[in-house]
C-alpha cells in the first residue's frame, strides 16, 4: 500500500464517472491528433521544399503562360544548377470527376530538379526513352490500380487534339515515391514534347519554370537577375522560393490553420470545464476522508500531490487513448485520406504536443481541488457531513 495505490483507488471508486471523464479527454485528444497531423500534412509542401529550389511564373498570375524558351534562358543564369518547366494539363481519367494533378514537363530536367523523386533506374530509362511515357505518383497508381507498362487513356478538360479528340494514350513508364514530400505522390507527369506535338493550342508555352540554385545563398541574386531579365517583356516573371510559392498557394484555400486552432480551442475549453468541475466535485465528496488523512499525519502537500497525480493520470491516460484512436483511424482510412491530405500520419510531433497539453490540462483540472485539499482544515473537514 502506498500513495500511488490511493490515487488509483480514488479514480476507481466511481468507475462510471472516471470513464466519462476519460471519454471526454479521449475526444479532445483524438481531435488534437487528427487535426494536428492534418495540419502538418497540409503545410508539408511549404516546409519540406529544399531551400535552394525556386520557381518562376507569369507575373500576372501563375495560371498564365510563359514561353517555353524561358526554361533554357533561366538555365543559363549564373548560379542555377538544374532547371525544368511544366504546363498544367487539366487531366482526368475516364470521368471528369476523376481529375488528376497532371503536368507536362521535360523528363531530364524534372528528374534533376527533384532528386528526391524515387524510381528504379529501369523506370527512369523507360521514361526518358518513351515520348508517351508517364510517371505516376504512388498514391495515384494505387487509386486507379495502374502498373508499370499499362496503357492508359487520359483526357484533358482544357486541351484538344488535332482531330477534336480530348483523349491521349499513355504508357506508364514508372511509379514513383517521394518520401520528403508525400503530397507529390499524388501527381502525374507527362512529357512536354508529347504535349507540344499533339495539342491544338497552347503549344510552346509553359506555366512554370522550376529550378535549383547551387546554394540558397545565391537565391536573392538569381531571383533579381531573372525577374529583371524578363521585365518589360510581354511575359514578365515573378520568381520565388518553392516554399514561399507553396505557402501562398495553400493560403488560397483559406486559413486552414486558423480554423484548426479555433476548433481545438473550443474542444479543449469544453473538456477543461467538464473534467475540471468533475474533479472539484470528486474531491469535495472526499472532504471528510481528506480530514481523516490529515489527522493521520498526511501533510497538506502530500494531499495536494495526490489530487494532482489523480488529475494528471487521468489526462495523460485520456491523451494516450485519444492519440491511439486517432492513429488507428488515420491508418485505417489511409486510402480515403490520401485523396485530400496525402502523407497524413500521426508522428512524434503530435505525441509530444498532446502529452504537453495533457500535463497542462491535468494541472488546470486538478489545480483548484488540489489547492482546496492543501488548505482544508481538519476541523471543518470532519464537521462537514
Amino acid at each position: 500500500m502506498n500513495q500511488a495505490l490511493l490515487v488509483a483507488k480514488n479514480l476507481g471508486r466511481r468507475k462510471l464517472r472516471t470513464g466519462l471523464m476519460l471519454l471526454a479527454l479521449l475526444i479532445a485528444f483524438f481531435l488534437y491528433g487528427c487535426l494536428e497531423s492534418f495540419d502538418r500534412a497540409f503545410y508539408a509542401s511549404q516546409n519540406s521544399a529544399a531551400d535552394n529550389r525556386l520557381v518562376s511564373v507569369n507575373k500576372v498570375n501563375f495560371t498564365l503562360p510563359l514561353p517555353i524558351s524561358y526554361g533554357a534562358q533561366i538555365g543559363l543564369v549564373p548560379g542555377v544548377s538544374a532547371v525544368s518547366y511544366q504546363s498544367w494539363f487539366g487531366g482526368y481519367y475516364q470521368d471528369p470527376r476523376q481529375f488528376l494533378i497532371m503536368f507536362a514537363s521535360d523528363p531530364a530536367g524534372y528528374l534533376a530538379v527533384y532528386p528526391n523523386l524515387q524510381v528504379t533506374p529501369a523506370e527512369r530509362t523507360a521514361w526518358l526513352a518513351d515520348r508517351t511515357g508517364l510517371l505516376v505518383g504512388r498514391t495515384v497508381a494505387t487509386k486507379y490500380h495502374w502498373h508499370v507498362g499499362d496503357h492508359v487513356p487520359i483526357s484533358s478538360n482544357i486541351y484538344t487534339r488535332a482531330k477534336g479528340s480530348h483523349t491521349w494514350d499513355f504508357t506508364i513508364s514508372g511509379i514513383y515515391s517521394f518520401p520528403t514530400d508525400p503530397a507529390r505522390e499524388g501527381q502525374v507527369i507527362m512529357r512536354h514534347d508529347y504535349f507540344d506535338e499533339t495539342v491544338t493550342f497552347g503549344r510552346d508555352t509553359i506555366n512554370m519554370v522550376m529550378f535549383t540554385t547551387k546554394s540558397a545563398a545565391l537565391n536573392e541574386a538569381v531571383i533579381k537577375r531573372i525577374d529583371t531579365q524578363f521585365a518589360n517583356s510581354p511575359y514578365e516573371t515573378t520568381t520565388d522560393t518553392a516554399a514561399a510559392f507553396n505557402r501562398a498557394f495553400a493560403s488560397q484555400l483559406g486559413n486552414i490553420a486558423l480554423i484548426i486552432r479555433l476548433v481545438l480551442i473550443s474542444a479543449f475549453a469544453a473538456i477543461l470545464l467538464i473534467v475540471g468541475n468533475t474533479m472539484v466535485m470528486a474531491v469535495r465528496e472526499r472532504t471528510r476522508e481528506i480530514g481523516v488523512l490529515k489527522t493521520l499525519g498526511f501533510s497538506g502537500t502530500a494531499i495536494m500531490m495526490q489530487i494532482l497525480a489523480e488529475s494528471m493520470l487521468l489526462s495523460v491516460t485520456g491523451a494516450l487513448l485519444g492519440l491511439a484512436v486517432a492513429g488507428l483511424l488515420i491508418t485505417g482510412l489511409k486510402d480515403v485520406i490520401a485523396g485530400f491530405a496525402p502523407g497524413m500520419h500521426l508522428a512524434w510531433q503530435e505525441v509530444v504536443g498532446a502529452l504537453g497539453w495533457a500535463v497542462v490540462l491535468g494541472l488546470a483540472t486538478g489545480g483548484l481541488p488540489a489547492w482546496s485539499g492543501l488548505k482544508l482544515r481538519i476541523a471543518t473537514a470532519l464537521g462537514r457531513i
Partner: protein
Amino acid sequence: MMPRVLRQCAALARMNILSIPQRIWMSVSTCFAIALVVAVLLVFLAMGNGFKQAQSSAGAADIAIVLRDGAQTEISSTVSREQVMLLEEAPGIARASGKPLLSAELYVIVDGIRRSNGLKSNLPLRGLGVEGAALRHNVRIVQGRMFRSGTNELVVGQGVTREFAGFDLGHTLRLGQTVWTVVGIFADGGTVRESELWADVGVVQSVFHRLNVFQTVRARLASPAALATLKSHVANDPRLQLVVESEAEYFSEQAKQSSGLIQNLGWPLAIIMAIGALAGALNTMYSSVAARGTEIATLRAIGFGGIPTFAGTLAEALALSIVGGLFGVLAATVVFNGYSASTLSSNFTQVIFTFKMTPALCVRALWLAITIGLIGGILPAIRAARLPIVGMLGEQ
C-alpha cells in the same frame, strides 16, 4: 388520468430545474460545453451555406451560358470568334433593335494581394462584351461608374475591395504591361460575381495575347422556355462543339462541385465534440440524481410513480442543453454572422463569401444540443426512476 400524469411531470420538472442552482458550476460547465459544440457546428454550417449561396444565387433562369463541349468550368472552356458569330444568329436569343443580347467573354486569372495576410491569391478578370453588364440583372454600381469600351478601365466587385488591397475606387494597378484604373465598384447581393474584376473584352484580349479567343458566351433568352430551342440548335450544328446551359443550372452545378472539405467538416467535427459534451452532461445528470436521492425517494414514498420521476430528470437535462444550445447559437451568430472569407472555387479563383446564419441552420444546431440533452438525460432519468426507496429516506 393523462392530464394528472402531465401535471405531476410538470411539477417534478419544475422542482428539478429550480434545484439546478444547487449544482450550479457543474450545470454551467455542461451548458458551456454544449454551447461550444453548437457554436462550432453552426459556424461551419454558416460558412458552407454562405459559400453555397454565393454561387447558387448568382444564376438566372433566362440567361444562357455557352461553354466548349466537355468543359466543366469557364476557365477550361474556349469559344472561337467564328462560333460567336454563329451564335449571334441562333434562335431563342432575345434581341433588341435587331441586335442579339449576347456577350462573348474572356476569363483570365490575375493576382490580388489579400488584405489579411499579404499573400497573392487568384482573382478572375472578366472581359465583357457590350451587352455583358446588361445580362446581369442584379448588378448595380455602388461607387463610381461602369468602364468604357476600349479603355483600360476596371470595375470591381465589392467583395474584392473588401478582401483584397489595391482595388479601391480610383486606384491604378499594373497587370502585365498595362496600367488599369478602377473606375467603379459593383454589388450583386453577395454572389460570386462580387469576387470578379470586369473590363472590356477587347482590351483584355489584346493585353493577354488572346486575340479572337473567348471562353464563354452569355445570352439573354427570349424566354426561359427558349433554352430548349437554343440547346437543340447548338447540338445540331457540327461547327458548334459547344454546350448550352441556363446560368441557374451552371451555378448550381458549380456550387455542388466545390462544396469542399472544409464545408463538409462541420457535422463530423460537431458530432465528435458532442460525444465529449455528452460525457459531461451524463456526469452532471448522474450527480444530480445522486444529490436528489432522498428527494426522489420521498416523492416515491408519497406515491409519485416512475414516469414523473423520469420526466423530471429528463427535463433538467433538456433545460441545460437548450440553454447551452441557445447560448451557442447566440454567440456564434454575434461573432460570425456576416464574417467575410474566401476560398478557391472550382474555377480556380477566389470566391469571396460571408458566413450566413439562417433560422433553419440555427434550428439544426439546436437539435444537436437537444440530442445531447436527451441522451445525457435518459440514462440518469432511468436510474432516478429505478432508485430504491428503502435506504434513501433517512440520509441527509
